[in-house]
């Protein structure tokens, strides 16, 4: 019997020891609740925590730098997004104001967006994205929600050139809305000026200036700006009136073309009168 057992043990000792050790492992498992074992585990945990705290410092350094990079990237993305939203907000408010203008005016409006404000050699001109295909013709006034912007001077199929008030060769008949005094508004490269207004004419600082009914290129009463200052010439007979425009030509993005053209009959009579005078 002993020999058989010995032979059995020598043949299967790996498995016998394996089963024995597995049983020992399983029998230890319930001992985890005992106070002594808990103390041992707590002590072991304390030591491991100490080692881990040293390592985690390096780990945190690595993970923090990675986190900073991720946050920087996120920050850049959000900045672009905020910028876009701000842009949309501005465009939205402009378009809303244009819609209000469209509702309040009797003239049909052709909404458009400015393609470029910089045309080499043509200061004060801009190009808009509507053209003859959209029924835009030369001579049509261009406005935005703040007031008069300029006149269409050239058109192609899909684009038009607009001569704004800020063009040096732009001259526009304007009127003081309060007193009804007429004058010619021009851009001197620095400010808008109504030149040679008689000092006896009733023009005060703060008066609203609008397009004049005598103008053949724009409908009357389109807002232009307000009187900012007056400079009397040396002789004391004439005054140069400085105007601050309602339209911000720097921020200009969306405009609308007023679908009217100057009355050719009036032009014809004016030409005839001029010929008679000459």
């Amino acid at each position: 019997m002993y020999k058989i057992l010995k032979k059995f043990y020598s043949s299967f000792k790996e498995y016998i020891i394996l089963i024995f050790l597995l049983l020992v492992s399983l029998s230890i498992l319930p001992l985890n609740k005992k106070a002594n074992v808990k103390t041992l585990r707590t002590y072991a945990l304390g030591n491991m925590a100490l080692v881990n705290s040293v390592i985690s410092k390096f780990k945190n350094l690595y993970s923090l730098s990675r986190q900073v990079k991720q946050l920087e990237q996120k920050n850049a993305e959000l900045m672009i997004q905020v910028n876009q939203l701000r842009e949309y907000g501005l465009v939205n408010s402009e378009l809303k104001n244009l819609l209000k203008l469209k509702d309040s005016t009797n003239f049909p409006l052709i909404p458009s967006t400015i393609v470029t404000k910089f045309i080499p050699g043509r200061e004060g001109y801009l190009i808009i994205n509507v053209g003859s295909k959209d029924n835009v013709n030369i001579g049509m006034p261009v406005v935005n929600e703040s007031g008069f912007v300029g006149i269409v001077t050239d058109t192609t199929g899909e684009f038009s050139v607009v001569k704004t008030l800020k063009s040096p060769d732009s001259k526009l008949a304007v009127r003081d809305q309060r007193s009804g005094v007429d004058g010619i508004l021009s851009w001197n490269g620095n400010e808008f000026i109504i030149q040679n207004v008689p000092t006896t004419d009733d023009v005060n600082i703060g008066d609203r200036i609008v397009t004049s009914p005598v103008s053949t290129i724009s409908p009357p009463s389109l807002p232009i700006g307000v009187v900012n200052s007056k400079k009397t010439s040396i002789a004391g007979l004439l005054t140069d009136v400085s105007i601050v425009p309602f339209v911000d030509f720097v921020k200009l993005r969306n405009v609308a073309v007023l679908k009217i053209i100057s009355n050719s009959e009036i032009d014809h009579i004016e030409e005839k009168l001029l010929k008679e005078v000459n």
Partner: protein
Amino acid sequence: MPVIIGIIAIVLQLTLIPLISFDFILPDILLIVLVYFTLLKGQLFGTVYGFILGFLFDIFSGGLIGSAMFSKTLADLQPVISLAKTESIIT
């Protein structure tokens, strides 16, 4: 010597290896050491070695004492059997 290497493996397993974990999946270098020494020194050594390293691992990790002991003791059985099977197929 195997015990010292085993202890180093336990320390590495508990400290540095989690740094290269991916979604809590991490390599078990303790098992690699166990399999290495089991293949080198035999099944019986491997079983006892796994039992001891499992115990040390439970102590150091602060986990349930007995759990790693059981799994490491049992884990050493497989490579030897696989090796024996491979050898029998080859011969």
